[in-house]
């Protein structure tokens, strides 16, 4: 049927006619205005989207609480999704820098994304405030006057568990992490302070669903403790399967980024009594934190995780710097000096910057417990490090 074919073709041409201009015209439509602009880079799609969602919500909550202003100035927060693809992240960040002309870039959940965006941002002499990722290169030789971490250095949370295992006198441990850079860093971080015997060191496939093979080996090795770094859905699976395999009652489960408020809704009671290491927990006894957690739960209806707290702190840090410079953001030296003071009330209590512009803060062993309202969250168990900086700062040439 000739007319049918033509009709189809016309419909398609019309569809294309709509698609192409939206694609081309939209990026061209630039908006130029006066307010302070912050680009918030977060991972909002794919299986890890929940981490990025926490960070974004924490950041936006802080801005909202301050009346949509940072440092008393009207603020526009431009949220972009890095899709957990480094090249996409670079593309989006270039948009923030070249088109939106943002004054700060904040956020970034994952280290591989951070590795890709750090150079374009700091090379453009724009301040990059990490809301989570803290790779060793940036903490050490690759440190930059334009990079500030409102989070932690990647190794530190693992070091908490290593130190704890050492203090407890655990003789044998089994370690497990996914087979990628962050996983290897986790194992190295744990071993930094742990001097006992590592009977087994296992590397699993990234995105692995089923850990029965590894759990069988753990059961066979009968260690005094088990340490793992298993972020996201992998961690949910591991926690549930660890419990189901009956190991939870016999071998302490030490972890980092595995049991937290992003995964606890899925693991539920299976994670009760599991340990983690972190610079913060929802019940951390600091007045600012109590207010933050209450406001966050009211606003979003779920319990904030570390990522949310760090996003919140990142916004407060930027706020303090804008305030101190009186909004004169073109004077980069002044902004940097103001940021370095860390003159804000962190939900973590102790917070100041090291020479590499990473935090010096306290770290806690946290344990999954049940709140009076029946929900599970991580709770501070004991302080493991006080005023703790990272080991890479020595390699950073900044003073």
């Amino acid at each position: 049927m000739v007319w049918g074919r033509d009709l189809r073709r016309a419909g398609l041409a019309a569809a294309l006619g709509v698609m192409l201009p939206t694609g081309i015209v939209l990026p061209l439509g630039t908006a130029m205005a006066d307010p302070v602009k912050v680009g918030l880079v977060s991972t909002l799609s794919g299986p890890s989207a929940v981490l990025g969602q926490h960070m974004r919500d924490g950041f936006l909550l802080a801005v909202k609480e301050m009346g949509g202003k940072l440092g008393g100035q009207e603020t526009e927060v431009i949220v972009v999704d890095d899709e957990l693809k480094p090249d996409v992240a670079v593309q989006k960040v270039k948009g923030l820098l070249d088109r939106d002309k943002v004054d700060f870039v904040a956020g970034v959940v994952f280290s591989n994304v951070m590795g890709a965006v750090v150079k374009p941002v700091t090379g453009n002499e724009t301040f990059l405030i990490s809301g989570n990722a803290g790779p060793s290169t940036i903490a050490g030789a690759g440190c930059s006057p334009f990079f500030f971490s409102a989070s932690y250095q990647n190794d530190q949370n693992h070091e908490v568990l290593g130190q704890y295992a050492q203090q407890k006198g655990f003789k044998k441990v089994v370690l497990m992490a996914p087979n990628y850079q962050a996983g290897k860093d986790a194992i190295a971080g744990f071993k930094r302070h742990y001097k006992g015997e590592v009977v087994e060191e296992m590397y699993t496939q990234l995105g692995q669903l089923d850990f029965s093979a590894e759990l069988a080996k753990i059961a066979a090795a009968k260690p005094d403790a088990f340490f793992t770094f298993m972020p996201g859905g992998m961690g949910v699976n591991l926690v549930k399967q660890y419990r189901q395999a009956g190991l939870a009652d016999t071998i302490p489960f030490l972890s980092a980024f595995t049991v937290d408020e992003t995964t606890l809704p899925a693991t539920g009671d299976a994670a009760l009594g599991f340990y983690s290491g972190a610079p913060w927990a929802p019940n951390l006894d600091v007045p600012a934190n109590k207010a933050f957690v209450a406001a966050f739960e009211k606003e979003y209806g779920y319990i904030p995780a570390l990522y949310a707290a760090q996003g919140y702190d990142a916004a407060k840090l930027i706020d303090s710097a804008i305030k101190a410079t009186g909004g004169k953001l073109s004077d980069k030296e002044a902004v940097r000096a103001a940021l370095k003071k860390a003159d804000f009330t962190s939900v973590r209590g102790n917070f100041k910057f090291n020479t590499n512009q990473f935090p010096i803060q306290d770290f806690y062993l946290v344990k999954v417990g049940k709140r009076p309202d029946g929900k599970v969250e991580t709770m501070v168990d004991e302080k493991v490090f006080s005023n703790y900086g990272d080991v890479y700062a020595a390699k950073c040439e900044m003073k």
Partner: protein
Amino acid sequence: MRALALLLALFAALAVVPLAADTYVVALVTRAMIFALAAVSLDFILGGAGLVSFGHAALMGIGAYGVGILMEEGTREALIAFPAAMAAAGLFALVTGAVSLKTRGVYFIMITLAFGQMAFFVAQSLSAYGGDDGLSLAARSTVAGQRWLKSPVTFHYATLGLLILITALCALILASPFGRVLRAAKENERRVRALGIDPYPYRLVAYGLAGAFAGLSGALLANLTEFVSPAFLSWHRSGELIVMVVAGAMAASALGVRAGGAGRLGGAVLGAVGVILVEEGLAHLTEHWRIVFGPLLVLLVLLGGWRGRRA
């Protein structure tokens, strides 16, 4: 001649972008052209020889790593690094192609996926070059010692030049007697064999060439982002490339460009540029842009009809 007109129109549009747009749009369009180059190299074997590679991102990634690793070892010169990247990707394609081309259809799709995944896992375990965290480039490559690629506009035109060159090269090869064997074997392998021609070596050479071209696009991508990562090699990216080629071919046929030869390649350019720009445009509108983009792809297929129904 609509095919040629489509190509010329596309290239002309890409050429004027730096005159009319800010640096962000220039960088965005450069990225689109790099994917267009990869899509052309894929369509060269997909449309030209009926070989659907589901491991094409690996070839692109190998090219990117070629530039990254050479730079890490102290070689910044594009005139050395780019040919090396192309050679590495081409060689990988030749070796894996020698095995893969024993299979047909979906089996070929899956075996190329297998080799792509192997390359992905190797990249992920390269601790010396950043492993999963990726590898940051010290700077963009130099050309004959000059830092031309540093400027976004020069980089844009260099990419466009290479895109035109490779597209023309692929079109010429497809139009040559060599290309005619490829296309004939795609339509009717038995008849080609009856004429005493074994299509295997032809396909292998084409696959190797496609690998080299994809490697070139990877070398450019590494320079654009100044970063290489195992994510460049993931099967998701291979899938995206297939989507670009197929969506482009369908869009081109809707515009009245006959499938086959240079028209196909124009479709690949259109598909890559279109997909990247539409994605970017929709992402500006809503975080949930995939909820719109998905049905658009479905509609494109349901309303269009690229080669029509099979027998």
